[in-house]
């Protein structure tokens, strides 16, 4: 089960890398900077490219294997590019017993993808989470930073539709803006 980190040697955006360096430099003496740095990197790049993980290892002087250990431990981190919206279904204990699995099944069906995959239109990626700390609201689904509580499998289509609509609106706005620019 040797899982190679199959990243094609993608050019890393130097502007974003400089932004990450600035983030690290501003917190030079902070202990436990690894996770904040990884979070910031994922914010900037949308995921954690191999070269960025190595960069963080060098900058924080933490062994590459340890950094990778942290990246692979937390389901929040992704080493593959994600869609524009990240859907995370909580399967922590509370959400699990209150039907998280069924919600996940509905999402898989509705999106036509498996956990860890991204829809063809690159709009949604599907991941599972291990407790968001909102057990009272179980089962919980997070779409980016939005928390959706007590999600029912039957309501999943509706939930996705709202994001699709939003995306369309943004898309139209983009077109209009472009038109104006022309």
């Amino acid at each position, binding site marked *: 089960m*040797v899982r190679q980190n199959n990243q094609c040697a993608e050019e890393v955006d130097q502007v974003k890398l400089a932004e990450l360096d600035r983030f690290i430099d501003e917190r030079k003496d902070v202990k436990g900077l690894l996770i904040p740095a990884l979070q910031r990197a994922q914010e900037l790049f949308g995921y954690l490219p191999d070269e960025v993980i190595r960069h963080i290892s060098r900058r924080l002087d933490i062994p590459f294997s*340890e950094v990778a250990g942290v990246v692979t431990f937390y389901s929040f981190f992704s080493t593959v590019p994600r869609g524009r919206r990240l859907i995370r279904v909580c399967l922590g204990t509370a959400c699990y017993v209150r039907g998280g699995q069924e919600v996940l099944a509905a999402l898989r069906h509705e999106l036509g993808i498996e956990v860890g995959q991204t829809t063809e239109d690159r709009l949604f990626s599907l991941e599972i989470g291990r407790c968001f700390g909102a057990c009272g609201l179980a089962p919980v689904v997070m779409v980016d930073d939005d928390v959706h509580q007590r999600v029912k499998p039957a309501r999943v289509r509706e939930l996705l539709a709202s994001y699709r609509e939003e995306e369309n609106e943004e898309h139209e706005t983009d077109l209009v803006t472009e038109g104006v620019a022309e």
Partner: protein
Amino acid sequence: MYNVTINGKDVQIAEGSTILDAARQAGVSIPTLCFLEHRAPLGACRVCVVEVEGARTLQAACATPVTDNMVVNTNSRRARQSRRTVIDLLLSEHEGNCQYCDRSVDCELKEIAHDLTIEAPEYEGERVPSVLDTSTPGLIRDSGKCIKCRRCVTVCNEVQQIGALFPQYRGYDTVVGPAFAMDLDSVACVQCGQCAAVCPVGAISEASHIEGVWRALDDPEKHVVVQTAPAVRAALGECFGYEPGTLVTGKMVSALREIGFHAVFDTNFTADLTIMEEGTELLMRLKAALTGKAEGYHGPSALPQFTSCSPGWIQFAEYFYPEMLPNLSTCKSPQQMFGALAKTYYAEQAGVDPEKMVVVSVMPCTAKKFEATRDEMNASGYRDVDYVLTTRELGRMIASAGIDFRSLPDDEMDAPMGLSSGAADIFANSGGVMEAALRTAWELVTGRELPTGNLHVEPVAGLAGIKEASLVIEDPLPDWSFLDGVELKVAVAHGLGNTAQLIKEIKSGQREYHFVEIMTCPGGCIGGGGQPRMTTDEVRRKRIAAIYREDEGKELRKSHLNPQISEIYERYLKAPLGERSHHLLHTKYVARQVV
């Protein structure tokens, strides 16, 4: 002091001790799998759970500090059954292949299962697939056998400060290994094998060369010679039931002959040679530094000079301190000096075609397997060293040859590369190379014997992580007058974590030395990654003492007085750092990228 009662026995133990410490003091044995001495307890394996009066749940003995008047029962029904369940669960995931495993004789998991009378699988379920990592010349890892105790992680990160290994992924999918469960050659592993030395099961071991050696021995065309490192003679006996620290030099030679090697030589011989070359190099560097020039010397002049016998340390420097490479002695390790000379000097003398010669070395070390494969190690025109066996592998070869080791008579190594001084023996101990070098360098410079008492340099011996000594040179011979009054400062570190600390202090100017000895493994080669398991500090001390006994038992205790060394310079090499030495015995290093 606290009073603690364990299984009805009262012990007095210092505050801050753990239940495990107290149990050991009381003579009560508690099984452990993740525990490592001198390291903060992980409490990961849960095998050491015990009953503590007043506590609701069982406590991990390794991680629970004692309190005054604590009453502990390690043998309650609940403790016994829990321990058993822990082992049952580990066994249910462990792809043991016990009948083929090289740990079948000393597997800690198997021993504990046996002691707990586990006789049938309690749980059956999915097993972690076995994936072999054979990417490095020194080590083999088998993910299916790994029980995730993390001893290897602790050693690699804390003792050696390399950080090649770390748990990857999560839960059932956890794999202990390099980043993203890639192979070892994708990270900065120096192949010291300390992970293999502490692994309780067969998940990390040396890459075996046994079959290759047998093939060479069985080939009538081949002339197979063997060299044995000094540390092997103080540990090989452990493979045959001897107490740690039993010297078995003579029996080892007999066994090697019975196995069928055509000549039995000693890495000690090239250890003595190393002293001649490395000692001269040090004096030349000092001359260049103190007088501004050293005629006829063209090597690097950076000080302090670092020793270069330990291949794990060499790779550590190549990865993490490339700026220090000019400080490393250009001398090859004794193993590689031996290989280069066996296929030239000895081949010539014995009238053997070097192409048909096979050089086998027996080392306490896994990094030596890597060292032998380095591109530049072919000064003889051939691969200088063909096979490297660990002490453990030699033990297995002796057993498989049907040799009754304990009843073997003592024998002696062959000429012209078998005679050695006591100074060569102590290469096995942390501080030993330094002491050996000082015995010779001091005498070359002053014409007098090293005045430190029985030729030992006490301050650099023993298990302290970083050691130092200084000697003021007085009344040197005319050639070395520039050293008059100079305070020669030396330091010794063992274990790469201590090494990193020492280098940090040298680079910051906090410490200043002329000569520094580094050994990769704690205690030096006697604690190498290829030695019989388990190497604890108690075992290290016994092996160290045995090596000093070997040294003190010899008439010949200084490298420069070894007649076979004088002979090789007269007949072949001419002079230390000479043309031939430069070609055969010296090397260069390459900077490597960590990530």
